[in-house]
């Protein structure tokens, strides 16, 4: 069991979730309530990581964030650190790859809030910010929770993009999925089996918890929703 790789994966998942979820809430809300030119294109773009092979995304990120790219050079000048083969690059990659897993459930959650409720809130004199924090956010919690669990689990299991962008540097970019791959390559099936079991148990528990909490959180509202 590679505890260092497990810790790195958990750390990567936490960073991704903390940075991505607020962004997904803003984007999900805009997509749910606003009509603007190019909305369909933006929605399609958000879904792209779901259909593209991770190696393709990894390749583009490697090219886009590498030493030869403008972004890569700019970040290196600013921080003295390159993005590729570094934890920070993995965080950026994880955020990009997980956008659909974060935005979709949150957008759907916003869409389920009846217009009557948002109208009533505005007519109660609440500011937009207050409507968001006092009315909308408590109502979209099941969606946010689903997004958190999906992103966290997906980052834990991410392989292709991580390998392409981060390589296999212990303590820096070697996540648990890559550690499993390494173990199998080294015929260390005990270690690979243990780490796989940990991921499996986590995935099942996380999904069961999400389902149960979504039901509990959503249970008290049905009667007033259309």
């Amino acid at each position, binding site marked *: 069991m590679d505890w260092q790789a497990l810790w790195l994966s958990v750390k990567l998942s936490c960073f991704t979730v903390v940075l991505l979820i607020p962004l997904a809430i803003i984007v999900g809300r805009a997509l749910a309530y606003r009509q603007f030119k190019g909305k369909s294109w933006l929605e399609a773009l958000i879904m792209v990581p779901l259909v593209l092979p991770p190696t393709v995304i990894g390749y583009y990120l490697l090219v886009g964030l590498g030493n030869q790219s403008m972004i890569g050079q700019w970040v290196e000048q600013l921080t003295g650190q390159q993005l590729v083969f570094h934890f920070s690059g993995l965080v950026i990659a994880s955020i990009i790859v997980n956008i659909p897993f974060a935005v979709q459930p949150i957008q759907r959650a916003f869409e389920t809030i009846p217009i009557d409720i948002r*109208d*009533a809130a*505005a*007519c*109660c*004199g609440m500011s937009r910010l207050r409507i968001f924090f006092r009315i909308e956010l408590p109502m979209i919690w099941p969606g946010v929770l689903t997004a958190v669990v999906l992103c966290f689990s997906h980052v834990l299991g991410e392989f292709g993009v991580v390998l392409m962008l981060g390589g296999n540097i212990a303590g820096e970019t070697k996540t648990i999925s890559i550690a499993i791959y390494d173990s199998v390559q080294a015929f260390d099936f005990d270690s690979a089996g243990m780490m796989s079991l940990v991921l499996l148990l986590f995935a099942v528990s996380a999904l069961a918890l999400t389902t149960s909490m979504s039901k509990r959180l959503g249970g008290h509202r049905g009667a007033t929703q259309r």
Partner: protein
Amino acid sequence: MVPHNADLICDISQTLPIPLEAHFSCRAGEVLAVVGPSGGGKTTLLRMIAGLSLPQRGHIHCGDRLWFDAKQSISLTPQQRHIGYMPQHFGLFPHLTALDNVISGLDHVPKELRKQRALDWLERVNLHGLPDRLPAQLSGGQRQRVALARALAREPAILLLDEPFSAVDRETRERLYIELARLKQQLSIPVVMVTHDIHEALLLADKMILISQGQMLQQGKPFEVLSHPNNEAVARQMGLRNIFDGQVVSQDIERNMTQFTLGDELIVSDSAPALTVGQSIRWVIPNQGIRFNAISSGRLCKSLNKLEVLIESVLVMGESSRVIASVVGIGSIINADVPTHLVHKLALAPGVQTTIALKSDQIHILSAQSELG
């Protein structure tokens, strides 16, 4: 400062996304019913008054405050308009208790006073003892009252009600009618109520506008609109089924009378609109203008407009029965809602031939344009 006793003046129109045109006023203390079929633009109109959507043209005033003016690009937000709004499905916040829902409408009150004020409002709508319940734990009628308390707690400049009785059962609805009628006497603000039910307008409104496909067909006092529809389209929207063709025989302007034919029968109307002898007309008579009285008691003997009819069907619908009869020799079909006890008393049944009288003061001659409608 919350403005009170301010009249609402609305003069707006738009062509997209749905055509809508409305010009009306509603005085403080008055209940205005916006009546029309589903999809006619009623809710859109209400949302425009609330500032939840914007018309393309026109202006909306409440007292001396300009809420919306397309020319000057002025549009106050719903928050700035300070309105009480009760959406069709009440719009209660599902995660907040009844008390917290009402408190949500009390932003204008100092924080320490809000709870007591909300409790007072719940008491006022007869909802004491349930402040800690979530909306899902309340009945339809109770939810409606929480929504009403929340809208009124805001001490609004106007009260907007969107189909306030559509989501409750009949028994609750009857009770809520009485409560709203009582509340109406205490309110000194314009109340605009959207409904598709003509009877609600007749029961509760001081004034009504009839709207269909985004166009205002008629406005006025509900009974006036019912008894004097502008045209056939209005008559049909008002649920009037007895609309017939006729031909003017004579007019007596001094006595305000018009005589016209229905087939071979001569009908007299206590109205004399500008018509010429021989002109074809369409005329209407509301249900209350048709009398199925006991011929044996002699009550119809002195009546004008007596018609021999053959009853074709009697459909009992609880306390009321729908009697469909054809005028003997003419074939025109009369639809009448008659109290069921009267149906039994007069032995009205299919195949029975009887006499009806049409009250001359209830006969309304539709304007010429109605022929197109």
